[in-house]
């Protein structure tokens, strides 16, 4: 599973973002995507059919911001431009970023 340190996230309009694998794993969806026998896990590339480039860019920024500050408390909020906040909300919901990362019971 941890073949390479980085994965690629691709928006539907063709933008590709290379992300630290560890940083991206706070998303439950991405986590599920990368385990198991599916194509994404093998290639290390995740295509999102409903997320636009700029939005995905913000998401990736968030991943890294979170990862960099993961050991600190009282971290100030990231800057989010108003005009993409609605789409960002939906993307966050899609990616399972609206709650704290939980480990699911895998038997």
């Amino acid at each position, binding site marked *: 599973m941890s073949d390479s340190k980085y994965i690629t996230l691709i928006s539907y309009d063709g933008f590709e973002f290379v992300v630290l694998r560890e940083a991206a794993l706070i998303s439950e969806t991405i986590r599920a995507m990368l385990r198991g026998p599916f*194509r994404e896990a093998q290639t290390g590339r995740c295509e999102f059919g*409903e997320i636009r480039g700029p939005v995905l860019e913000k998401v990736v920024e968030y991943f890294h911001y979170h990862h960099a500050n993961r050991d600190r408390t009282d971290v100030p909020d990231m800057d989010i431009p*108003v*005009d993409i906040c609605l789409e960002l909300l939906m993307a966050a919901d*899609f990616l399972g970023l609206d709650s704290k990362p939980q480990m699911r019971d895998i038997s």
Partner: protein
Amino acid sequence: MASRNRPRPIRRPLINKEAGGFDQCWATLQSAMTDIHNKNASKLSFENLYRASYKITLVKRGEDLFNKVKEFETEWFHKHIIPGVDELVRNNLPSIALIQMTTSSSHERREAGERLLRGIRKIWEDHNTSMNLIADMLMYLERSCAETKQASVYATTIGLFRDHILKYGLKDVDGSDQPFIILDVVIAVVLDLINMDRDGDIVDRNLLRDITGMLEQLYETDEEKENEKLYTTIFEPRFLAASDVFYKAECEKLLRESDAGSWLRHTRRRLLEEEERCVTSVSNFTKDSIAAVLEKELVLAKMDDFLAMEGSGLKAMVDNDREEDLGILYQLISRIDKSKNTLKTNLQSRVMELGLEIEQTLKNTDFSAPTAAGAAGEAEEGAEGADKPKALGPAAQQTAAAIKWVDDVLKLKAKFDSLLENCFNNDLIIQSAITKSFSDFINMFERSAEFVSLFIDDSLKRGLKGKSDEDAEVVLQKAIVLVRYLSDRDLFERYYQKHLGRRLLHSKSEIHIEKELVRRMRAELGNHFTAKFEGMFKDMELSKDLSTNYKDHIRNLGDDDRKSTELAIHVLTTNFWPTDVMGRGVLQDGDTSRSDCIFPPSIKRLQESFYKFYCQDRSGRILTWVPSTGSADIKCFFPKVPGKESGPLSKDRRYELNVSTYGMIVLMLFNDLASDESLSFEEIQLKTNIPVPDLTKTLTSLSVPPKFRVLAKEPLTKSVKPTDKFSFNAQFVSKQIKIRVPVISSTSKVEGNEERKETERKNDQTRAHVVDAAIVRIMKQRKELTHTQLTTEVIGQLSGRFKPEISLIKKRIEDLLTREYLERMEGDTAAYRYLA
């Protein structure tokens, strides 16, 4: 017109609405599920599937999706899985109706069973993997499910597995329904394999663990309640029941075929085995329950039978010091019974039996053989012939008996102490039980107080002269241990006083050891108990000083009379010393005139001189001479016998005789006699006023044994009668110059029956007084008490000295009532009041 600061409206990519609709999404998902089940998922894109379920959930048709998934899975089971399972079962079990018992060999059964289980395991694992992936796929759906509290996809699908596969009813060859479901088959096979494992066959334990693991993850209902795991509700009870049956049978077999030692070892092995099994084959969850089953069937059920076995049961284990067996037994019993009652009672009864056996052996042992002579001490009456080994006289035999009894008891104690340490882990409960039994049988034996005192006497006299301090220490320890067990301490005190008196007066033991022993007794039993003994020690020291002072005094008087006799004196304070030493014992014929015996004039002068010296520094004291316990050294001159030219009789002989005081008095009489005159017994008695029994003994020792025959007796019989005549034996010859004529009362011997009764009677008298004193003391303090309270108080106070009988206490209360120390309380006759 879009301002840069307003949220941009969501623009979805151009998708056909229908294409994004429920059915299309579902089709995608369905084909994906098929692929997953067929292990073909690598060409799928997770994002697609996830998005499909996402879309369905967004249009609020999540529940439909859920149901569709369920339907799909159910159908999948029926179409693809069940036939396989059916065949699996059929191929591997000859006939489903005979699940419990088969005629095939255990090897075949094992192979078949393992094949079946492997098949089931594979199905389960595949299902598990697939369901995990599918649940991932439907993650978005589940997240919304969680809010509405529906069972998760995963739980539901697991439930489907349970319902459609495990609970699938099996059909027999002819298609009719059997009462078994696959779950039953699986469990039966598992149990069968476990039993084979117990019998020693090698089975695949990992396989078993996987199957039980599977059961642990399945629940009775989809709510997955913690205590409703299939493992707990179905498997575990059956497992415990089957184990129960198995071990019950095994225990019976053990009882029939082997002995207690093997049973113990076998049980221990099984306990370890089952504990291990809970790690390797079944769940750790069951550890305590299976241990309980084992304890019930293997340990407890037939324990009494095993322990009662001849040759290997508890009795044999104790007798033969089988420490390993006893250790295992102790551990097993401690598991099931914190108070270890069975073990305790068994040990106690064994101790009692062995203790009473000691007494029995004693009665049966013949102590008269010469090889037992080592215990006899000095040879006393009945000694004949100078050089051959002497047979023991009856009194010496009794002493030997006493010593043997004590030795045996000490050996028994050492044995049980070793068992306690090595097997029973110094367990307090067992220790107190054993101590109690020891106390019981020791006190049941009526002569224990006397025997213990004799043992100490013997050890101190013979054993410790010249031994090192450590050896002495060992003996002292043993002595104290025994004294601790005795409950009739006042009786022991009486005997000890008597024996100690004799030892001190005849200097038979080392003083510092005596003192050490008394010091320990004081620590153990209290001041009051040892006061007399300490008084005796003090008297001895004082007497030594007195003697030296007196010698100086005489020298200073300038009385340089060569013929004066040297005096070594012991002054004994009356109360400290035993009464018979003091010569105040009651003689058979009530003669109490011991201190009136007539001393020769030279001796009388000596006595008066000393008395004057003694009273110089003290006033108001009376000294009474006790001739029965003293001794004297006499120089004797035997002139040569005329007419004999050669041999010892032709020479003058001078000897120094050491005799008792009575002996001295008698012999001095013959000084004034002509050589051919004789004195009759009665004449001697008149002249000396020595009491008859003492005189008889004295004369016997001086005239009967050839070694000490300084007096010739007429007639020359072995016993002395009042009609005998005695004269100076001019023919007396001895190889030694210094001759010690044995003193009769220097050895402490076991009392004859009469003497013992006498001692006990005196003891009882003293006890009556002690009880009186205790009652008065208690009543004075408490003023009013009921009868029961008073009795309890009295017993409590006197417990350090002896155990008073209730009837004795009652009698003393009556006595005190008549003497008007107490009165009955009006209205309540069972209560008393103290009368000042």
